């Protein structure tokens, strides 16, 4: 009967209990001249709490990694005030800071802390934010990301994405025996947790819209199978194990359907939509070429996808109702593939070929369809938007190794996230 939906329970404790070691070292490869100068002054902290966590450093790292801020080095700070009364605004202004954050961390009982912080406009001396956050010891990190989120949003008017998570594939070891891990980590690469591990390839992690569940492709049976795994419980369902190709899962915006790629017996790949409750499939594309890499439009009525029906791979969009005809979107260059829609659907990110190299490009979806190539690498693939749309996470290769990188959606800021181990592939940024 329902063999494609049988439940594999309780990988949770195995998976979530194991921690990968990779965390990222950020190398800014292309900076932004108009980055906003800000000073995050070290918070006054009792010795006990100081040994636990440096809140100001994490806030500073988050803001610097966004590419939108230039954070002041601590050794350049003339003073370390913790409250407004002690801020010599003229001095901080002379050091070219537009904004500054001061604060403190106070223990509350045995294992709880109160973070108090204030954001000031150095020029106007106006207080822009003043908050207190309480957290227990392991919560200090996420509380600090929250501080960074609030500062980011207050100054730029864009919701911060520092408290979100990412998923990616890490490949450990070398041929012939490699280990594939599906990892979920904080957006800064910290707290990496292995949620699935196999000696056969894992591919294409895709977040459900509520951020609770990942769909992915596993070759653990040496055949491609699409699984859906709930992160908190580790409960796993096999949702597609048809003969041939089972690939490229993508959640509909309401989380009820999965677009995916299946093949006929003679190897023709087409895009289908599966109703997750009923398992019923509807065929969306019907063309002898390769149709794959589907992505939903925001309204859930259309799919963007890659097709080589016209020769090389190009990006198309089609409605999902019977009779809807695909419309080609990309015309520039001979290779445009793997579309990802920005959160507000103003932009499409995809992989394009330029001078024999594979790079991340964007297309304007609201205007004339202008294309901008954002990156300069040779193996830049798998773009994934941050949930605020400000940056795109992607996979590239650096010195023969798979690494992750970030580029701002306007292409002006670019960074390499160098991990301590593993070949990193296919990053997928979780929703808010």
């Amino acid at each position, binding site marked *: 009967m329902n063999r494609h939906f049988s439940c594999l329970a*309780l990988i949770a404790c195995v998976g979530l*209990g194991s*921690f990968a070691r990779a965390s990222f070292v950020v190398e800014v490869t292309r900076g932004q001249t108009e980055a906003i100068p800000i000073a995050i002054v070290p918070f006054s902290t009792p010795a006990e709490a100081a040994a636990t966590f440096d809140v100001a450093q994490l806030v500073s790292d988050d803001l610097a990694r966004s590419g939108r801020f230039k954070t002041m080095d601590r050794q350049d700070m003339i003073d370390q005030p913790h409250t407004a009364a002690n801020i010599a605004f003229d001095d901080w202004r002379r050091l070219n800071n537009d904004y500054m954050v001061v604060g403190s961390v106070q223990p509350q009982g045995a294992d709880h802390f109160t973070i108090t912080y204030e954001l000031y406009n150095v020029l106007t001396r106006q207080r822009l934010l003043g908050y207190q956050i309480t957290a227990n010891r392991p919560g200090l990190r996420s509380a600090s990301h929250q501080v960074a989120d609030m500062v980011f949003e207050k100054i730029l008017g864009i919701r911060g994405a520092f408290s979100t998570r990412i998923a990616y594939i890490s490949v450990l070891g070398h041929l012939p025996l490699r280990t594939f891990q599906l990892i979920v980590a904080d957006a800064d690469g910290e707290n990496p947790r292995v949620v699935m591990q196999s000696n*056969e390839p894992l591919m294409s992690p895709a977040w459900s819209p509520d951020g609770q569940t990942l769909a992915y492709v596993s070759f653990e049976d040496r055949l*491609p199978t699409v699984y859906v795994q709930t992160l*908190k419980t580790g409960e796993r369902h096999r949702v597609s194990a048809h003969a041939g190709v089972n690939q490229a899962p993508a959640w509909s915006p309401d989380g009820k359907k999965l677009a995916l790629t299946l093949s006929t017996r003679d190897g023709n790949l087409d895009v289908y939509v599966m109703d997750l409750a009923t398992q019923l499939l509807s065929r969306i594309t019907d063309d002898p070429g390769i149709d794959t890499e589907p992505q939903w439009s925001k309204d859930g009525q259309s799919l963007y996808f890659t097709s080589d029906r016209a020769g090389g*791979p190009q990006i198309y969009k089609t409605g999902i109702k019977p009779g809807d005809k695909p419309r080609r979107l990309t015309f520039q260059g001979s290779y445009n593939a*793997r579309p990802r829609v920005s959160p507000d659907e103003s932009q499409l990110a995809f992989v394009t070929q330029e001078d024999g190299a*594979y790079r991340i490009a964007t297309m304007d979806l609201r205007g004339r369809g202008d294309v901008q190539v954002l990156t300069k690498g040779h193996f830049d693939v798998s773009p994934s938007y941050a949930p605020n749309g400000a940056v795109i996470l992607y996979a590239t290769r650096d010195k023969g190794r798979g690494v992750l990188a970030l580029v701002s959606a306007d292409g002006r800021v670019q960074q390499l996230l160098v991990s301590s181990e593993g070949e990193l592939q296919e990053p997928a940024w979780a929703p808010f």
Partner: protein
Amino acid sequence: MNKVISIALLIAAAALLSGCPKKHNVNEPPVAGTQVPESSSGGAGEGASTSTRPLDADAANAARGLGEGTGLLARKVIYFDFDKSEIKPEFADIIATASRNLTSNPNLKVKLEGNTDNRGTREYNIGLGERRAQAVRRALMLQGVAETQITTVSFGAERPAVEGDDENAWSKNRRVEVVYLP
């Protein structure tokens, strides 16, 4: 104004880990799936440990007495040009030998594993790998092999034969492996 707003934080990490004590060695995460019970409604192999590998091509062929080092049967890999799925003339003998072998052993089954180099997007490469496997499948069927004797799988760029980011590695990775099933 001096209003200080308090925010009670939900500690995601604590919640996530509450049911899962950190008892495993950080350096050696256990293989997921090893504790997964075999589902009664599932097909064979569904709950199989991911660390158990099926026989590789050589071992399977050796087990079937299909020759492991000598003769045309030992050449079981067909290589392709960049972005191409046409079988080059130099591999016609591999196809011919495999066809003879399969037509004279109607119970023999073969799996064609399509692969690409690591350039381009991963999912599109799955399509290219499948197209290469299908090219070999068609060639075998043209020489009389029954459709039921052949299955195909595409690993795209995920199972390279050789690691590396140069043409030397790429040319060895754009391939279809002919795997006789045990």
